[in-house]
């Protein structure tokens, strides 16, 4: 029980980073698989709606390991979310809390703010931006970039690939713009 209590605390960044980094050799040793998650979205398209588009005409079944991997991520999320939490509020930097208060975000009991990420927001501007718009940008952008945080920032950088460094710097630039300029303006315009 001591061990369970220990695991239920939020993990230090060094432990977290080490375990995320070890996923790279884990997948290679299990079957020479390159760590990368956004490809799963392409395989889902190829499997469900190929629509005669050449980008989706390939043998996705050969890549089905990736779909098992993401199904595992969802299951792992369920296990950690239901059995490995200590019930404490998430500790967020005071400066960020102050800025989020202007967005109407005050609830720190979960990993995401329920003021935004709730079904009741689906048909409001928040749903349109945070679920539909944001999701679309993630899917379109990662495929255009040929990878996401896992494929480029972790796998690509681990293999010292300079295109992955370019991609990572662009991910960060887009994120800085979005979090500091775009999102504050959206709340100003719509709230």
């Amino acid at each position, binding site marked *: 029980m001591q061990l369970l209590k220990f695991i239920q605390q939020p993990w230090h*960044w*060094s432990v*977290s*980073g*080490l*375990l*995320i980094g070890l*996923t*790279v050799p*884990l*997948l*290679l040793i*299990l*079957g020479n*698989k390159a760590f990368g*998650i956004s490809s799963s979205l*392409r395989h889902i398209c190829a499997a469900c709606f190929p629509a005669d588009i050449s980008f989706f005409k390939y043998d996705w079944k050969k890549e089905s*390991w990736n779909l*098992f*991997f*993401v199904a595992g*991520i*969802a*299951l*792992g*999320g369920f296990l*950690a*979310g*239901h059995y490995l939490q200590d019930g404490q509020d*998430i500790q967020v*930097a005071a400066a*960020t809390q102050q*800025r989020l208060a202007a967005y109407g975000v005050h609830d720190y009991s979960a*990993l*995401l703010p329920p003021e935004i*990420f709730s079904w009741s927001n689906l048909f409001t501007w928040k749903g349109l931006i*945070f679920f*539909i718009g*944001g*999701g679309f*940008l*993630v*899917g379109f*952008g*990662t*495929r*255009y970039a040929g990878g*996401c945080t*896992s494929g480029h*920032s972790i796998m690509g950088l681990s*293999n010292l690939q300079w*295109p*992955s460094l370019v991609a*990572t710097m*662009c*991910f960060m*630039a*887009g*994120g800085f713009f979005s979090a500091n300029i*775009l999102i504050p303006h959206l709340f100003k315009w719509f709230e």
Partner: protein
Amino acid sequence: MKNIKYLVAGVFFGIVLVKAQVISWFRIQEMFQLTSFHMYGVIGTAVVTGIISLQLIKRFNIKTIAGDPIAVVPKTFNKGQIIGGLIFGIGWAITGACPGPLFAQIGTGFTVVAITLLSAIAGTWVFGALKSRLP
């Protein structure tokens, strides 16, 4: 059945994502508002671990559990890494998630993120449809 090991690896990785809090929208806002070191520490440590692991695999010619050689395909540069990278970055800060965390967020009980995931699949599909006409 040979894919079950990847499901187990995914479970491990999903648990790590949640406990590292990297699937938290709050942590992503902190990262891009430069108010916390947490995300930089996690990603930095992961990259260093990955670099060392790959060097060891190459140096000692480590094989897969089936005895096959391990080879990593190099990345080739194209403009998509810049344009697509910027687009994904914007979406990352909005959703608080890259593709992996989307699956983990749904697992933790934020079921509405399934809409985000469907939209991400739609985004991937639209990219595939437009690919030949994009720079």
